């Protein structure tokens, strides 16, 4: 033992002269660090109640609960996360995974209360001093656990595809499908947005787990036209998708197509291999062999009823066949889907017009229930001078002829009037018929065009020109071709609802000399087959029905699809068909008892 070892420890006494290390009043003086993971904050406006935070919380500390002031609506479940601080470990996985970025953490760390129940609180709803805190842990792009980018659908290049009616979209391969399916959060907000409430999270899961046959069953539970919809659906689900808030929506439509692309050859075996239909006595007549009528037929037949579909065209399919061109929906796809429906015993009578060959009354007498699904297949007329001039066509009739196999000669300079999806189909078909200059005239601005943004972009890629705030006012005949007199518009003063409407500009007349002019300004219902019966029809020509059951004022007569609501999309017609099948079955069973 040396002297140093005895004296050295007394060195510690020098510390008595030092300042203390501790802070006198840390609770008041010391704020949490900028990144400190403190108590949660939630922007309840941004939050859509998708429940992904609940899903990922490792200790089940989060519960989605209904709250005052947040009502369920399209794209928002109306629930908000409630966090139990007895279970939370402040790992911030919930913040890192939030698709909208609404959930965050403040840097607050002090919360004293005598009531332990308070610690199960709803951030953003319960009023807390740290609501809206700037500092704390917030989700950054790098930290975000989700992938915002969509796997794009491979398509044929514009130069190549404008020369052919062959299908434009090529479909996902296995790799792309798996990558895209992996982006899904399984939150289920899309299910409400879909008119027919397809179980989207489950069929995407089926793709991930390589159970495509299960996926097909899930599709057909709600939609017997999944193969077509996988190509042309307007995809309200994608509009509501949680990922769309800070990234691209999941490519739900393309994933649906992936399932059908890989199962259609064995489709009938997968769906109806065990053939379990128990026959019932009653019969149902369906007027209209389009998506609505055929969907209703499919579900009614599965219940065992005798179902006969009357279609006035030569082939079934309705607007899917006669309104949508081949390059978006090949007829072969539609044919095999219709075959899946007829193969379970649905009777399809084509070339039969109700109101002509058979009267509506006769149909009612011979069947226990009738479903009207005639669609809205007549083009709206533009009542200007010169509509009868040769070279002027109505959009839907034009598409009808092409679908039937014709290739009308429309010349090289074509004018298309209108801004909806029909106008896009018309102008792109015109390109494929060989027209060198195709222009679309639309009376309003591009922002107001009802057509899908994708359609407009693809049309532009194929060389279609767009002229906005223009409307034709008179058409006259030239030696060869037509002279179309047009006026330019400007957006006028807002009307009572605040909407600005197009008003013709003085002195803005100009003419366009073209070979053909195709009007695609809208569609309406032809309900003439029910004229003279007691079925109520509205002034717009649509059938008046009970909003819940789709039954008209006449018991046993139901109506759905475009002919009930006016022109709308295919998936809504299919949803109506499924809904009508359910209510018709209920009606028939009630009658039975």
């Amino acid at each position: 033992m040396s002297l140093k070892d005895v004296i050295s420890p007394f060195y510690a006494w020098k510390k008595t002269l030092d300042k203390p290390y501790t802070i006198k009043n840390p609770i008041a003086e010391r704020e949490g660090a900028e990144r400190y993971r403190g108590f949660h904050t939630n922007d309840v406006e941004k939050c859509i109640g998708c429940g992904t935070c609940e899903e990922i919380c490792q200790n089940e500390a989060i519960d989605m609960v209904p709250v005052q002031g947040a009502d369920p609506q399209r794209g928002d479940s109306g629930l908000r996360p409630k966090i139990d601080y007895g279970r939370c470990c402040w790992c911030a996985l919930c913040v890192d995974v939030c698709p909208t970025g609404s959930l965050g953490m403040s840097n607050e760390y002090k919360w004293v209360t005598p009531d332990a129940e308070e610690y199960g609180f709803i951030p953003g709803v319960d009023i807390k001093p740290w609501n809206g805190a700037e500092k704390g842990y917030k989700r950054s792009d790098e930290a975000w656990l989700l992938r915002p980018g969509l796997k794009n659908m491979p398509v044929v290049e514009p130069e190549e595809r404008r020369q052919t009616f062959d299908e434009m979209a090529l479909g996902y391969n296995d790799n792309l499908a798996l990558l895209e399916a992996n982006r899904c959060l399984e939150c289920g907000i899309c299910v409400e947005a879909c008119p027919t409430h397809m179980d989207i999270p489950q069929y995407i899961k089926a793709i991930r787990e390589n159970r495509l046959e299960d996926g097909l069953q899930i599709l057909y539970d709600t939609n017997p036209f999944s193969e077509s919809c996988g190509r042309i659906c307007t995809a309200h689900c994608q509009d509501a998708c949680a990922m769309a808030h800070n990234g691209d929506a999941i490519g739900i439509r393309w994933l649906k197509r992936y399932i059908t692309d890989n199962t259609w050859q064995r489709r009938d075996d997968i769906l109806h291999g065990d053939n379990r239909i128990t026959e019932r006595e009653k019969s149902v007549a369906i007027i209209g062999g389009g998506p609505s009528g055929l969907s209703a037929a499919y579900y009614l037949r599965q219940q065992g009823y005798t179902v006969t579909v009357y279609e006035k065209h030569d082939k079934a399919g309705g607007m899917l066949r006669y309104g949508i061109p081949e390059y978006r929906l090949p007829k072969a796809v539609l044919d095999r889907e219709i075959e899946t429906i007829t193969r379970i015993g649905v009777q399809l009578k084509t070339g039969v017009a109700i109101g002509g060959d058979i009267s509506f009354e006769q149909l009612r007498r011979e069947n226990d229930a009738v479903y009207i699904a005639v669609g809205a297949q007549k083009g709206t007329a533009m009542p200007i001078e010169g509509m009868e001039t040769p070279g002027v066509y109505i959009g839907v009739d034009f598409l009808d002829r092409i679908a039937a196999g014709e290739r009308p000669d429309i010349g090289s300079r074509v004018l298309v009037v209108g801004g909806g999806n029909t106008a896009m189909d018309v102008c792109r078909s015109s390109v494929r018929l060989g027209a060198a200059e195709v222009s679309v005239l639309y009376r309003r601005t591009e922002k107001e065009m009802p057509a899908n943004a994708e359609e407009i972009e693809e049309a532009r890629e194929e060389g279609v020109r767009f002229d906005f705030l223009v409307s034709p006012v008179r058409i006259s005949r030239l030696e060869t071709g037509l002279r179309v007199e047009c006026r330019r518009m400007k957006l006028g003063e807002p009307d009572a609802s605040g909407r600005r409407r197009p008003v013709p500009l003085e002195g803005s007349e100009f003419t366009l000399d073209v070979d053909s002019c195709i009007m695609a300004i809208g569609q309406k219902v032809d309900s003439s087959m029910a004229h003279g019966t007691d079925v109520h029809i509205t002034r717009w020509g649509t059938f008046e029905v009970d909003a819940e059951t789709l039954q008209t004022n006449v018991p046993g007569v139901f109506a759905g699809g475009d002919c009930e609501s006016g022109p709308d999309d295919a998936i809504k017609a299919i949803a109506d068909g499924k809904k009508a099948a359910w209510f018709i079955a209920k009606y028939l069973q009630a009658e039975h008892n």
Partner: protein
Amino acid sequence: MKSGASSAITVPTEAHSDRTDRLSPWNPFWARETELDLDSGRYVKIWQGPQHPGVTGNMALEVTLEGDVVRDCKTHIGYLHRGFEKLMERRKWIQCFPIVCRICVPEPDTNEYLFAAGVEELSGVEIPVKAAWLRALVLEMIRVASMTMGLGGQAGAYGLGIVGQWAVVHRDYMLDLFEELTGGRVYHMYILPGGVRQDLPEGFSGRMEKVLRMFENLIVDIEKVMFDNAVFKARTKGSGVLPREWVEPFGVTGTTARAAGVPLDVRKDNPYLIYDQLDFEKIVGGESDIYERAFLRKEEILMSIRLIRQILKRMPGEGPVRRKLPNVLHWQVQAGETYVRAESGRGEMGYYMVSDGGEYPRRVHVRGASYTHAMALLEQMARGQSIADIAGLMVSLQTCPPEIER
């Protein structure tokens, strides 16, 4: 000072040679019951622990005393078993990362790193370069903090409480730095599969340098107060000697092994992260007593401080710190098994992970570094010690019950 009154009463020779001659699993001397006539009135049995200032964590020692001398010691664990390994089997891969840090309180980041490394090996995810540097930085930071606290515990076990006070305060300064880097003080949840969570905040290096200087000053103080301390030297030198031949059969690693002259250091033997790009040496001793082990730990702290400075200087400037993982809500890691290891403050820590290709880990086994030090070894080494020195022996073997029992 002669190794007399306060040092261990030496063990009877024939028992000693009995142990060293036949060190084989087929002759587990450590499992043999000691024959003591407990009815003779010569012996007193006491429980040191599970709640006792003289044990590190919650662990019980059932000590049979003859007077002041320990004749027999049985270790009892299980008070800190929280079932982590089973919990992980019921949580998705990403959900496991917030709980692994809680396996060891003083050094949570090593656990986070090992879990992340294991998952990355199984799934083939590669982390960005900067993330590897940040991980090494965090591991060295926590090593400094935890070993400082360890020194404080070591001194406190001998009644030198002042060192413990200083050590905990300086650890708090390090925890302040953790708070600004990771968002948490004790449980950081910063290292996760794919990289680390965030990059360094502004001005971090400056603040780190300040704190490192404080630690260096602290070590100077500790040297004066603890290592040049007659009482401490008298009590610890020559006490708790771990024979070199016991290191391998008992699976001793870390400073404990290095103090016995066996140069094991995972950072040099199996370099992980960016340790192969740093300049440092293994710190090896020879005396293998409690004093030597504490001394080596003090040297380790200084070496870690130098390593932190190196890392901050050599770290690449800009760069991503995180690789995006597949959608973690349904991430299926490829089937396979792996064992990943790291040098924690206490020794070699390892994670053995098995995946069956599903969304949940099939099996995660945590090799706590002090698992091998604190049970059978402690029982053997406690024999012949004075009851007053048992606490010091436990700390010296760096017993950490949370990682023993998970």
